[in-house]
């Protein structure tokens, strides 16, 4: 063991600037101990009972998803509650919700890397996994909403016998490129991050199957100094590419709405406010996942109160930006002097969907204010509840934006109400099942925390303070 637990390691774990807060890694850890602890979750430890229970529930929900999807393909989108004037409803709400959740993963892995925030290390791996699975859920919704999903490839530009091309002036086509690029780059980023850990698992694995599978995935990684050098350059470049990408993706999602002429959508504020909302909901989801994960697998040494506290602060900050967005939406409507805009604002707050609007304000604006208090940021169960509330709030936000804007537009003769059907709900619950099933499989078969980055953290903290 190259680094025996020592006084210096304990002192080292207190980072210089953050001496007031908890450490990013608890003292006493060595290269060997972090490697063994994280790889044991995958290779040797018996999965806890809660894993099986959680996986079973998720798997049942996944079956619900497959059933709902199968029935939808056989019958058509008439199963869903959307109809003119509310032609976009659960499908687009859930699309925006899922893709927003994904954004925190990229933010944690790319932006915090560029900003040299060492606390990202313990949470980036599963935040990236979360991104990938959330993008998978998000991508399915617009496809299922196509009506004839089996010709989804018509969205892509390719020379075809119909002699047609996509309309490149439409944000919906931009979305196809943005989301597929985002999915591909997230996958690359995640996989590149996994390569050295795959080598660690290959070298630790006892069973032949595991050795072969992790061996293939590691691609013969040996940890050579020259390889590491190129690897780090590549990782940094990818982070630099992913950062503007994540902003562009949700801006384009915002433009899906903003380029229309519909009151409530036609706002220049949308792209930045959507990006802030995405980060807000994404951090809430990371917290929702991290808190049970660290409790069940005993990862409190690596995902410390410092991580939770920092994520809470990011949530508070982005929550305030989102609150500013709500305020400005209302202000723009009033200041524009446009009676349709102003009607929409009043209708949102006092119309038939007023309950969703005020619930959204409570969830996204009122409740996160608790995070101003240090005692709240250190209270793990309470943080978990707040994160769940924010997840609900951000879902409601998309509901309010989409449904209340559509259901009463210019002509009262075209007004109508939207109510989700049981298939809307089944599809939504099912997509949560898809997300959680993938996540449970990830926890079981891949290292949830970047092992080599933890080793680096142990090394850096010892070197900096020894």
């Amino acid at each position: 063991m190259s680094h025996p637990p020592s006084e210096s390691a304990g002192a080292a774990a207190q980072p210089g600037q953050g001496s007031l807060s908890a450490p990013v890694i608890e003292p006493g850890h060595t290269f060997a101990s972090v490697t063994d602890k994280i790889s044991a979750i995958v290779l040797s430890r018996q999965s806890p009972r809660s894993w099986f229970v959680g996986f079973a529930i998720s798997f049942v929900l996944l079956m619900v998803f497959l059933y709902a999807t199968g029935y939808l393909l056989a019958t058509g989108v008439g199963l869903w509650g959307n109809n003119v004037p509310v032609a976009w409803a659960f499908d687009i709400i859930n699309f925006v919700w899922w893709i927003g959740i994904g954004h925190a993963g990229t933010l944690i892995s790319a932006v915090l890397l560029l900003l040299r925030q060492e606390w990202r290390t313990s949470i980036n791996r599963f935040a990236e996994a979360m991104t990938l699975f959330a993008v998978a859920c998000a991508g399915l919704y617009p496809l299922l909403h196509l009506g004839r999903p089996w010709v989804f490839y018509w969205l892509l530009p390719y020379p075809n016998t119909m002699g047609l091309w996509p309309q490149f002036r439409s944000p919906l086509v931009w979305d196809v490129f943005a989301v597929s690029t985002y999915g591909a780059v997230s996958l690359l980023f995640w996989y590149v991050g996994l390569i050295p850990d795959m080598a660690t698992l290959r070298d630790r694995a006892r069973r032949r199957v595991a050795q072969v599978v992790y061996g293939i995935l590691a691609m013969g990684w040996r940890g050579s100094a020259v390889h590491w050098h190129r690897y780090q350059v590549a990782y940094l470049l990818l982070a630099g590419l992913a950062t503007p990408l994540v902003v562009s993706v949700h801006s384009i999602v915002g433009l899906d709405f903003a380029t229309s002429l519909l009151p409530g959508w036609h706002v220049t504020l949308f792209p930045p406010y959507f990006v802030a909302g995405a980060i807000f909901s994404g951090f809430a989801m990371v917290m929702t996942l991290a808190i049970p994960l660290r409790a069940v697998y005993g990862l409190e040494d690596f995902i410390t109160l410092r991580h939770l506290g920092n994520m809470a602060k990011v949530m508070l900050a982005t929550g305030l930006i989102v609150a500013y967005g709500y305020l400005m939406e209302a202000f723009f409507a009033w200041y524009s002097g446009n009676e349709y805009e102003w009607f929409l604002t009043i209708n949102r707050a006092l119309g038939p969907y007023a309950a969703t609007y005020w619930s959204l304000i409570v969830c996204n604006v009122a409740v996160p204010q608790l995070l101003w208090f240090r005692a709240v940021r250190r209270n793990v169960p309470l943080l978990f509840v707040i994160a769940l509330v924010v997840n609900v709030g951000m879902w409601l936000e998309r509901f309010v934006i989409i449904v209340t804007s559509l259901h009463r537009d210019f002509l009262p003769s075209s007004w109508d109400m939207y109510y989700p059907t049981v298939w809307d709900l089944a599809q939504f619950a099912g997509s949560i099942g898809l997300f959680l099933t993938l996540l449970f499989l990830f926890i079981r078969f891949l290292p949830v925390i970047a092992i080599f980055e933890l080793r680096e953290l142990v090394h850096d903290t010892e070197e900096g303070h020894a």
Partner: protein
Amino acid sequence: MSSQDVALYGLLAEFDKPEDLFEAAKRTHAEGYRRIEAYTPIPMEGLAEALGHHTTRLPLLTLLGGVLGGLTGYALQYYASVLDYPLNVGGRPLHSWPAFIPVTFELTVLGAAFFTVLGMLALNGLPMPYHPLFNVSEFKLASRDRFFLCIEARDPRFDAERTGEFLRRLGSRAVYEVPP
């Protein structure tokens, strides 16, 4: 290279601490060995330079991928919207370049990302399913907490005995022969 060395890929020295490896790498390079490589469980800043590797062309590949991706994106849209399927929408210009920027941007990022990752793998010679070093069972610890330095047999200064003696004097924990 003498005949008895042909059977060897090289000699592998094992170290306990990153600092020891770093020192050994510098001394090995100073001694004139050039076909050398260090293997570590963590990326170590300056180690590649100490072994005599200075720059990587990877950023250039990223730039190339980005430029190619961006040009492809813009050309695709120009061809589709202006040349092959011109569609008059309310008299707006066919070459409406601001609307082409988002797709151009996305494809720039996509091209750059693929070139970065594939370029990194290609320059590193990965995937490589077999490597002589995997024959040394202790080498498994290179992904846990041990640090290794390898002098390859094809180095002109390599001599199984003298090089082995040199590696032992560097403060290594053990020296292994690596079969090819």
